[in-house]
């Protein structure tokens, strides 16, 4: 999941970026509205965390410009403005959620997760694909092995990859799309990064699911990957 933070306070921007990265998100962070809008236009973000009072171009203008260009990213407005009028104004301009400063970081994480899920049409925190269950709230994945349930031991990057595939379950996802949503501007992406991550994920799924478990991640030649229960 790729998140853009547009926040002019350096401390807040850096802390949020760090916290979100540690939660498994690919995060880009910028300090002003103009750069925020440019980023939002050039990259397919899942969630944009947008401060209201920004230099160059305020958050509300960025939001209207994003909505005018029909950018699909979910927007979480972040501001110290707490009157009902402000909230209504933010939401009617096209914000998907609204968080008043100061806020608990846990709450921001939960809201970002919910927004990211909804962005892909998933409302439940549990995504079930055959024997696999991805718990987007707990950021964990479980697989059925006979009558038992085995929790997968995944790195944050692997979990994010699995979650993204699960959100798009049944639909092929290109490598480029995976790169765009899983890596931020700071990440070094090698040409085989995605392939090796997929290989590692497959290995863990096979190991946890046991020999009876059907393969879940399928390769689509020249397209990418698709996560689905292979029904014969």
């Amino acid at each position, binding site marked *: 999941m790729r998140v853009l933070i547009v926040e*002019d*306070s*350096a*401390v*807040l921007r*850096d*802390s*949020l970026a*760090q*916290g979100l990265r*540690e939660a498994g998100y690919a995060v880009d962070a910028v300090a*002003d509205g103009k750069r925020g809008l440019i980023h939002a236009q050039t990259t397919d973000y899942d969630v944009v965390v947008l401060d209201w*009072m*920004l*230099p*160059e171009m*305020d958050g509300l203008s960025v939001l209207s410009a994003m909505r005018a260009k029909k950018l699909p990213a979910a927007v979480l407005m972040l*501001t*110290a*403005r*707490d*009157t009902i009028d402000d909230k209504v104004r933010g939401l009617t301009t096209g914000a998907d959620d609204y968080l008043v*400063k*100061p*806020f*608990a*970081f*846990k709450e*921001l994480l939960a809201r970002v997760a919910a927004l990211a899920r909804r962005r892909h049409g998933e409302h439940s925190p549990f995504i079930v694909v055959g024997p696999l269950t991805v718990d987007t709230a707990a950021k964990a994945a479980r697989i059925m092995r006979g009558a038992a349930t085995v929790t997968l031991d995944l790195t944050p990057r692997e979990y994010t990859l699995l979650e993204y595939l699960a959100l798009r379950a049944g639909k092929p996802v290109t490598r480029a799309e995976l790169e765009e949503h899983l890596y931020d501007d700071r990440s070094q992406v090698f040409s085989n990064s995605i392939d090796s991550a997929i290989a590692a994920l497959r290995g863990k799924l096979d190991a946890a699911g046991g020999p009876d478990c059907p393969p879940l991640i399928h390769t689509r030649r020249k397209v990418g990957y698709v996560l689905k229960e292979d029904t014969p």
Partner: protein
Amino acid sequence: MTSIRRQTSILVAVSIAGLLALGGLALFVVVRAALTRQFDEVLASRASALQSLTRFDVDEVEMDIAGEVMPRDQAGKDAEFFVAWVRSDKGWQVLERSESLLAVAWPLAAGVPPEPGAVNVPLSDGHAGRSLTIDFVPLTEHEGTDEHESSPLSDGEQASVPTVRVLVAQSRGALDRTLATIALSIGGVGLALVMASIAATRWAVRRGTRPLQTLSARLAEIGPGTLDRRLNADDLPTELTPIAGRLNGLLARLDDAFARERRFTSAASHELRTPIAELRVLLEVGLSRGRTPERWEQTARDGLGVLDRAQRLTEALLRLSRASEGSRAALPAATIDLAAVIREQAARALAASGYDLTHVSIDAPDPLPARIDPALAASIIGNLIDNALRHGDVSANRPVRCIGARDACETSIVISNHAPGLTDTDIAHLFEPFWRKDTARDARGGFGLGLAVSRALVSSLGGQLIADMDHEKNLRVSFRVPT
């Protein structure tokens, strides 16, 4: 509480009642005089009739009244009667008296000669009446002439003819009853008119003051949340139009003040919440994963930076609060040199901002004396120079200019800097707390409180701080104090 409607109603009703009472009284007096005159004329005609019936024949006076005068002479309520006396050597003796007088011995009218005109007298039956008394010398009856012909006497004869006094009187009963009826009618009609006028006054006053109620109702609809509304004065009477205009002016000022207050509260809450949000996220994210001591050190340093800014903000807000509440500072006894203050503050501000001496130009009479608190003057001038250096487009070619001047009325210091980005709208907001051209919070460390604090300080000195923009996009902030 006084009520215009009540007061006006009472005033108008009392005036109308008074005027009606006076009018009624005057009418009554006129009518009574006319009726009394008429009454007296009847008395006078009777008296002259009796006079014409009185003759002096040879040696005695006769009055021939058989059925000719006072056919209604009779006793009763509206009694009318007469008495005639003749003067002889033995004094006045009754010559004739009307039968209606019955046995009453009417006293001889006092006074010789009798009073002219009719007078009020009490009648024998206790009723009031009016009487008229006349004295005359009867005509003499001559032999050989017609029985009814009379002729004036010669001077010799005149002396021997006795004087006759006739008194005619009549009860005032009918007259008084008529007058009472008239008085009652006037009183009744007057009372009815007073009642009607009270009702009419109340109606008229209520109708007349309706626009006031309309205005009051419209004003009542405007509250703190609807200060942008204005009173519609189109359908108000001309007397209320200026009031509505003034109220609208007041509303505009109130609206402005409320909006300024709201902006201030919103901006202050934003500024105060930001460091709390920063610290909270900083610490929460810091605690969410195991950190190396180096990372914790960085977190602590970031936290201190946030606190430092929060502290500066709190101090700036306190300065603004104190400056705004400060009463007018007493004029110090000593006069200070403002040119020296400008030089000191310019040097300090240049050192703090990293500019050199070419970036500030000073053009002021040396010395530039002013009676002003030295600490306040330094604070204000320092603030203005800091602000110009921080936000202006400053270079050696476009330095911050400090121009001092003094005349009989005021001492002024104008601090100007090139500000190509500022618009006229910005100038209007320049002195608002937390206003910044750019909402960036930590661009150059400012909170947007410096000019607001300066203006509050200048106000406490009884001076003025105003800003304008010349055609070359130079922002000029003028600080003026009375000389």
